[in-house]
């Protein structure tokens, strides 16, 4: 898959970069990070133009984010009905709504690049919870500027060994995402285990 995608860039240029970044923002398993690194490398060697690489990756990512958002938002009512039918799902929906109201902007921004594996899902959640589109779009654009600059830039600088850099970045990004998920889960479990403990302690006095 990776080899094929890279060969396509060599053969067809930035069009492939556009298509792949677009698809990756919809949670499809395409090697977008490696592709941006490689096209940054191709820009450094003169096989591609840096501005068109940047433009294609950025446009693809922003259009992909917004497609995910609007697809989720359009089917939002149906998904919401399904969520509300079960109390546990309804609670989850309310929690995500509260989370997005409070942390929505920064979630969209950081999920574009720092915890990129979560990006597509944040787009979908934003759409389902009817997060304000303008806010979503602005934070998304800022996040994608960072994402594209980071990967294309690193590819441009470390042209000599793209696959090694891609290995480091891929694993580091997985690590950061796992750390974030682990911290969130840990804090939640900690909170869940607390009130019951108080109750258990107070029980003998009754």
């Amino acid at each position, binding site marked *: 898959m990776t080899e094929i995608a890279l060969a396509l860039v060599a053969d067809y240029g930035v069009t492939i970069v556009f298509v792949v970044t677009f698809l990756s923002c919809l949670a499809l398993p395409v090697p977008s990070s490696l592709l941006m690194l490689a096209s940054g490398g191709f820009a450094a060697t003169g096989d591609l133009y840096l501005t068109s690489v940047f433009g294609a990756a950025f446009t693809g990512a922003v259009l992909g984010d917004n497609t995910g958002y609007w697809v989720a938002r359009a089917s939002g009512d149906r998904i919401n009905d399904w969520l509300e039918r079960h109390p546990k799902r309804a609670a989850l929906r309310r929690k995500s709504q509260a989370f997005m109201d409070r942390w929505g902007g920064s979630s969209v921004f950081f999920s574009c690049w720092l915890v990129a594996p979560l990006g597509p899902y944040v787009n979908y959640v934003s759409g389902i919870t009817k997060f304000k589109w303008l806010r979503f779009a602005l934070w998304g654009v800022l996040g994608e500027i960072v994402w594209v600059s980071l990967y294309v830039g690193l590819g441009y600088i470390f042209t000599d*060994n793209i696959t090694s850099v891609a290995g480091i970045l891929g694993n580091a990004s997985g*690590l950061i995402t796992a750390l974030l998920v682990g911290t969130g889960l840990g804090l939640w479990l900690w909170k869940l285990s607390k009130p019951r403990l108080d109750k258990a302690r107070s029980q003998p006095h009754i």
Partner: protein
Amino acid sequence: MQRIKHLWAHHRIMLLAFIGTLAVIAFFSIKTTAAMIYWMNPAHQDQQLASWMTPRYIAQSYNLPPDVLGPALFLEKDMPPMRMSLGMIADEYDMSMDDMQSRVDAAAAQWRAAQDETR
């Protein structure tokens, strides 16, 4: 300990998910470290050839001037290729990727030896 017992009794799936996440963290920590160690080793500076690479890319990765790399890739000097992949070249000359690798390695070794002599 009491907390863990409570979680195990009432939120088992979440607790297992948390333990699973810890395992994933350990996995990616090891992989990230390994990738960095690999990257910092100068012996791995020449990237193994792959069919997606272009002649310009190989020249950059192996730090070779075009007139050294060109003949190894069957390229003539007056046709500067923009984005022609190594896979295409190999197909055209009916060569495997290993054949191309040894051609480039030979050219690089010869050129580097010559560079050392002149120093």
